[in-house]
Structure formats: C-alpha cells, structure tokens
C-alpha cells in the first residue's frame, strides 16, 4: 500500500503575529513590519532592519532561555491542539527540528553575562545540538525519532522533506516538523560581516535589490500518513542536493539548483508544466537571486508559472524559513490567494523573473517551494491542495 504524507496542520510565531487568520490577513494586506536594530555591540554607528517577533512584554529581556522555550512550546502546542492530536498520537510521532542557530541565543546570553572565555564555557551553557529537540519532545510526550537538522537556510525544509520520508517508508505515522531561529548576535553580526544585509528595504529579485533582511520565527508543520482534509495539502515529493561550487554561493548558471528542482519534480511524479506556482527562496542578495533565477529558467523555460517570495513579510528566518514559508503559502492558498512579493518593483533583465506585485486569486494548486542555503544546500518541496 502506498504511504502518503499530508499536512495535517501547523502554527506560526513570526513578525506578523501568532494567530493564523491575522497573519494571513497581514500577508494579504502586504504588511512588512521590520524595525531597525543597532549594531552597537560591534561599536558601529548604524543599524540594520530586522523582523522581530511582536512580543513587547519584557519576557525576552528578563530571561532569554525561558523566552526561547516559551515561544517554541507555545507554537508546538497551538499546532498540536489545532490538529486535535492527543498524547497517544504524539507518543509514536517523530520530532524533527530544523534550525541554523539551534541554542546559540541561549548560550550567547550566558556568554554576555559571563567573563569566561574558551570552549569550556560551552559545557555549562550548551548541552549539544540535540538538546532543544529533546526538551520539546519530552514536553509533549513525543516518543519517536528526535532529529535535529542543521543545514543552514534549508534546515526545516529538510526536516519536512525527511519527515515525509519517514512516513512514506513506514517508520512513523506522524511527524512534528519545526523550524525555529530566534534573534542572535552571531547571525546578525555575522551576516553584516559578510556585507549581505540590506540597509533599508527588502527587494528580492528587483533590479535594485541590495541584500537580506533577517527575521526570527518559529513554524510548526504537522505531517500525517493519509489523505488531507478538505482544503488541506498533500506532500507530493522533494529533493535535497549539494552544490559543491562554493560554501556561500551557488554556481552562477544554477545547474545544481535546477537539478534539485528537476529531481523534486521526478520524486513527486509531477511534470514541470503542472506546477501552478513557485515559492522562490529569493534572499534578495545579488548572487543568490541570480543563481536561483538561472535555475528556474532552466527548468521551466518560457513556461514559468507565477512566482512569489514571502521573505518581505517575515524576513529571512534562515533555518526556520522552510516551515514558516510553507505555512504562509499553504494557508494563503486555503484562503484563496497566492501572496504578492512586496518590495519588488522593477524587473532585473538579467534575472528574467518577475514575482507577483499583487496577490493572485488561486485556490487549488500544486506548488514548488524552493530553499537554497549556505554550504551549497538546495532543497525543493512540492505540495498540492488548497481551495
């Protein structure tokens, strides 16, 4: 018997909020709620835009570790409650956690308070990469495989891809796939050191694009064996590959990016001309947008379906982007539209790809979702449903 994985539910904590109807309403309205964050730790006299979680209740300042777990546990709890999963259903589920920073926000705060130097510091402040996932699994009584994916910007996309794989191969029947990255100085100052951050506006694929705007957030996608509920989505397939060209950029002709998309189409059994929309990774950096568009042109030729990019709503949430952006797309389609790409104004003739300037009415759709990160990591997912 063929085993299929469907998306049973999900929940978000992002710059647009936590309540799904309100979040998708804000997407429909084109909200882009970033704020300026200073780079004062490095003694720099300027800041960079950043999409922060909209909690202004002082919890983060009082105790970063508690805030970190509060956000994670609250998002998982909302997803599980929304799907009606009980303790019995969770007991055999897998918990797959995707993150770029993992517990960096926690031990960074400890490091800032401490006067200690050297790696001995970590043995007190960090319990290892798997510790966050295990804390969440223990909290919710999840007893199956508990795997942390750390593949940069594709982390939670890979958690979803392999979560579906665990269902398809009969290892488990349910998966809680999480993408979570909270603000941390290592990432914020690190991206500034690479000169990759936009100074004012987010304009992916625009001829005047000038970089990334980062964001923080948590996305939880629940996968389950079987067919989706009415209006839900089925996971059709996907692929992950490595472009060994360079650790921070992909080969400019997008050959591995195109190969990843093609492999995902083959895995899903979906021809390119049956893709109704593409959710682009679209970081807004010059080279990444260039290579991604080259890959899309190779795969789709002159029959490119509508393309959109959702980072301008929530920022580049790095390892969390896989889960968060999948939910923004699927939940928008459930409500009858494909989101526009705010900030995109003028086509770059070198790219040859113009994302949507206005929301496009769309219900049932087969969508390709693309994620391309550092370490040459490339992931494409294909889902069908909506309406």
């Amino acid at each position, binding site marked *: 018997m063929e085993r299929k994985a469907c998306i049973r539910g999900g929940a978000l904590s992002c710059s647009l909020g936590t309540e799904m109807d309100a979040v998708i309403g804000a997407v429909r309205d084109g909200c882009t709620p970033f704020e300026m964050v200073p780079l004062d730790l490095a003694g720099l006299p300027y800041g960079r835009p950043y999409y922060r979680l909209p909690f202004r209740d002082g919890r983060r300042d009082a105790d970063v570790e508690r805030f970190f777990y509060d956000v994670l546990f609250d998002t998982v709890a909302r997803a599980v409650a929304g799907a009606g999963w009980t303790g019995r259903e969770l007991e055999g589920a897998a918990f797959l956690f995707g993150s770029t920073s993992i517990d960096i926000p926690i031990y960074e705060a400890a490091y800032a308070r401490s006067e200690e130097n050297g790696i001995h510091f*970590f043995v007190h402040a960090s319990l290892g990469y798997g510790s966050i996932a295990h804390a969440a699994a223990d909290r919710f009584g999840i007893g199956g495989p508990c795997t942390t994916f750390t593949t940069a910007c594709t982390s939670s996309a890979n958690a979803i891809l392999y979560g579906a794989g665990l269902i398809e191969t009969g290892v488990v029947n349910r998966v809680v796939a999480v993408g979570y990255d909270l603000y941390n100085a290592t990432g914020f100052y690190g991206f500034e050191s690479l000169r990759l951050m936009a100074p004012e506006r987010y304009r992916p694929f625009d001829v005047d694009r000038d970089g990334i705007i980062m964001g923080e957030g948590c996305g939880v996608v629940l996968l389950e064996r079987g067919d989706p509920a009415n209006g839900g989505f089925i996971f059709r397939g996907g692929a992950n*590959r490595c472009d060994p060209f360079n650790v921070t950029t992909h080969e400019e002709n997008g050959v591995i990016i195109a190969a990843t998309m093609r492999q995902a189409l083959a895995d899903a059994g979906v021809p390119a001309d049956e893709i109704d929309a593409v959710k682009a990774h679209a970081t807004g950096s010059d080279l990444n947008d260039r290579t991604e568009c080259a890959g899309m042109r190779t795969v789709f030729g002159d029959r490119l379906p509508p393309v959109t990019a959702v980072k301008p709503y929530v920022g580049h949430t790095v390892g969390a982007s896989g889960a968060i952006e999948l939910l923004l797309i699927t939940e928008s389609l459930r409500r009858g539209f494909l989101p526009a790409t705010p900030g995109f104004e003028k086509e770059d003739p070198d790219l040859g790809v113009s994302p949507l300037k206005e929301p496009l009415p769309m219900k049932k759709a087969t969508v390709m979702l693309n994620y391309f990160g550092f370490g040459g990591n490339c992931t494409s997912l294909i889902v069908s449903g909506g309406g």
Partner: protein
Amino acid sequence: MYIHGASAFITEPGTPAQILKEELARVSTAYFRRINRYILLSLIGAHRCVAGRTVPADTAVYLTTERGNLGETEAVLRQIFRQHSLPMPYSFINTMSNTASFYVAQGLGAAGPNLSISDRLLSFERGIELLTVDFRRGRARSALLGGVDEANPSAVHFERTYGIPAGSVRGVEGSAWLWVTDEPEGSIGRILGTGAVRDAAEGAIWLRERTGRSPVIAYGLSVPAAAREAWSRTVGAVDEFDYLSGHGWFDSATALGISRFVQDCPGRLLLHVTCDRPGRYTLAAVETAAK
C-alpha cells in the same frame, strides 16, 4: 545498503592543527582554505574512508554530530562580545556545522543529498535512518555517513550525560565514516538497519526479523552496566566488541564502534545497543563480509 569503505580516525584532544593538516594532506590531494579543526577532522575521516577512490557524482553526505563546531563558535562570540567587533567572515561561516559536510562534498565531488544532523546520543543511528529513507525512496544510491566530534572538555558534562565517572573511559576526538552504496559486488559489509525497542526481549525479536545469525554485541556508553548481561543473554550474543576500551570515546562514538567493527571483524554480525532515554534502546546492526 552495502558498505564499501570504513574509516575511524581518532586523535588525542588538543592535537595541533598542523598535525591534522599533514594527516589530511596524506589522504587527499585537494586543497582546502580557511578550514578549522572540526572541518579538518571531518575531511580526514571521509577521505580515509574513500581511500583515493572516486565516488559517484550524486553521492550523499550525512554528517552526524553531538556538539558540532565548538572552537570556532567561541571565537565568534569572543569577537562580538569581548572585542566588540564584527566576526571574521569565515569564522562566522565556519560556525555552521553544515560547512563541514559541504567541504566533504566539495572535496569528494559529491553533489547528492547533504545533511548535518544530530540527536542526543543517537546521532549516528539517525544518520542510518535518514540514509535508509533516501535509499528506499530512490533519492540516493551512494552515501557517506560519518560521526564527527571534537573532544568534550568537561568532566562535569560527561558525568551529567552518562552517569559514570569521567575517568572511566579515555576521551579522544574523532571522525568515523562508512561509504555505503546499493551495490553488493565488492562490498565489505552491509547495514541491516536501525530501530528503537523497549527492552532486550524486543531487541531479540527486532534482530530475528533481520537475520538468523548470532551477533557480537557492542554497547554505547549510556547503556547501564546492570542491563548489559540481560541484553547479551537475551539476544544470544557470542561475544562483546568493547571498542570504547580499545579506542577511546568521543561524543559520536557509535560511528567509531561500527566502523572499527567493519574494519576489524570480517564475517560477523554486530548489534550495537544505545540507550538515550529511560526504558528506550536504539539498535543498529551491520554484518561484515568474510575475507
């Protein structure tokens, strides 16, 4: 899933980076710039495993780790919080653990799936699990699966994690790898799989479903001494493979145990037992070809 190469590189904690670079130069002709200790360890193990052969271009890389890249991360924190400067760009990039799996892929020309994953005490077993998904889904036919960790510098952390005195086992740092393909011809072993069970009785059933052979048994450090006799008796173990006493321990030691067994014990079956939570054991089984 047939094993075509195995390596287990271990070194004393604090081995100078220059010695690691010289070791890498012995096993690879590729030149790597701006790499750190963790990446060096990863590359040495992976290149030793392949041993000068050419892997298929769509080979997958699964790098498993408990703690990832400790030293470089502290350097970046020091630059930001102590020296009040931006981090060095390549220091920042190297804080991401998939940088190591990227360099392994680049050095070997492996453009297939590329994952850096972790699961407390079970990282290597999770690697087997995901490799199995990719093989069964037809997404990979050749893969490198490794466990890499720098030395754990803390006796406190060790005792808290394993519940035994820190001096019980010699700490090393290491990088142990398997090269696995779907081709039985010329293989030196076979992965039978991984799975979770509640106790030794379930473990015996799990093993019988995969093979009729009696195993050599090996234990992860977390398996209580009191439970080992029951496990050995119940699964009918013919011998114990005590790789930790023989070679030392690092956080990804399961990879070390399995790869050493593949190299040292031809014609036998290994059942590796690890315990990550009270009342739950995770098994991994491999059999080796007769010489």
